[in-house]
């Protein structure tokens, strides 16, 4: 039995972030499905794993963690020798550049991207009505963020380095949602962003995450 457990739903972008990291690192894990429709994520036993009642929750032996970006950062360090190198070893300065783009994902990209994913991708699945004003507002916000990315990706092959790192991985779940909606035009309109999105979404580890959703 794997020491690592991920508790969550394969539909959750935050869960996908963690699972993508585990597949990249080629680390065995057990996926414990949480029935969110039945409110399982608000049960006492789940709250003991994530007091915010959100997915994912994560265990590695006795260690319990929540927050997908903290979990993935832990996994990337703990299993540094396995699978894909997702960090930038060496100088503090280069490691800081990874931290920087990870924070950009969390604080600049995530909010408008996940708002658009919710409006255009998830709401139709749940039979809810899209708020067109919210879509317009968030497309404008995301456009500005992607303008910065377009410039960055002319200077650097991937966001933090010349190779794929955690900073790029963090974007995969929301990017995948956007690709399935009209918002993909924002990505397609920017050539370097577009090329980057294409490259990172065809990674084998990401394909495994997508396969999980089909089960």
């Amino acid at each position: 039995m794997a020491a690592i457990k991920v508790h969550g739903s394969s539909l959750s972008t935050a869960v996908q972030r963690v699972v993508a990291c585990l597949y990249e690192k080629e680390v065995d894990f057990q996926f414990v499905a949480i029935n969110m429709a039945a409110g399982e994520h608000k049960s006492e036993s789940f709250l003991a794993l994530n007091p915010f009642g959100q997915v994912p929750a994560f265990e590695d032996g006795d260690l319990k963690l929540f927050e997908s970006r903290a979990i993935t950062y832990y996994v990337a360090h703990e299993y540094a020798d396995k699978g894909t190198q997702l960090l930038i070893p060496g100088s503090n300065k280069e490691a800081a550049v990874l931290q920087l783009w990870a924070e950009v994902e969390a604080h600049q990209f995530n909010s408008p991207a996940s708002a658009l994913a919710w409006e255009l991708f998830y709401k139709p699945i749940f039979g809810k009505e899209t708020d067109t004003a919210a879509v317009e507002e968030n497309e404008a916000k995301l456009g500005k963020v992607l303008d910065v990315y377009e410039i960055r990706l002319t200077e650097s092959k991937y966001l933090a380095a010349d190779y794929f790192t955690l900073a790029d991985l963090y974007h995969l779940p929301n990017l995948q949602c956007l690709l399935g909606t009209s918002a993909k035009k924002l990505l397609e309109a920017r050539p370097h962003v577009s090329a980057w999105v294409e490259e990172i979404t065809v990674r084998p580890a990401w394909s495994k995450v997508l396969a999980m959703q089909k089960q």
Partner: protein
Amino acid sequence: MATPVKVHGPPLSTAVSRVLACLIEKDVPFQLIPVNMAKGEHKSPDFLKIQPFGQVPAFQDEATSLFESRAICRYICEKYPEKGNKGLYGTNPLAKASIDQWVEAEGQSFNPPSSVLVFQLAFAPRMKLKQDQSLISQNEAKLEKVLDVYDKRLGESRFLAGDDFSLADLSHLPNAHYLVNAAERGELFTSKKNVERWWGEISSRDSWKKVVDMQKQST
């Protein structure tokens, strides 16, 4: 002797003050470079070179430029592990993972509603901007729920990530300070026993008092 690091931005900015608190905790010499945001200096081509999103702070350590306050804080802790507060970012991987978890909780759960409230209640009136009451009520409700989780956690643990003050607690200081001192929302913190105890401890740290002084001197 190494050149002091540079922090660009006004100390009144919550993100700038997060970095200042960290530098002072770590006893790392720095130079604060003013950015005149009223004049749009943060959107000037020169500033955009060091912060392409046109926000403060920007940070420089000799040839290295960084932005995003939480990334800057982690960089400072990693580069100067032996200076000042050695345990600020943990002294082993498990401690660090717990600190990262609560820094993320701050960034993802505490920061969004508290930032809206700080802007609406502390900054908007002073900038003569109209307040949005429904945004205020919505975010008060969200923040209450987050602080309920914190109250439970702080009943089990002295600080968020464990027994010692860490980057996770520090990350909360800027927004919480304004909520308590400039937005008349101290009750959010004092109405919950463990949160009140925690807030009292972290806000009375010497490093934070120095940041508050810098904020006062800048006005």
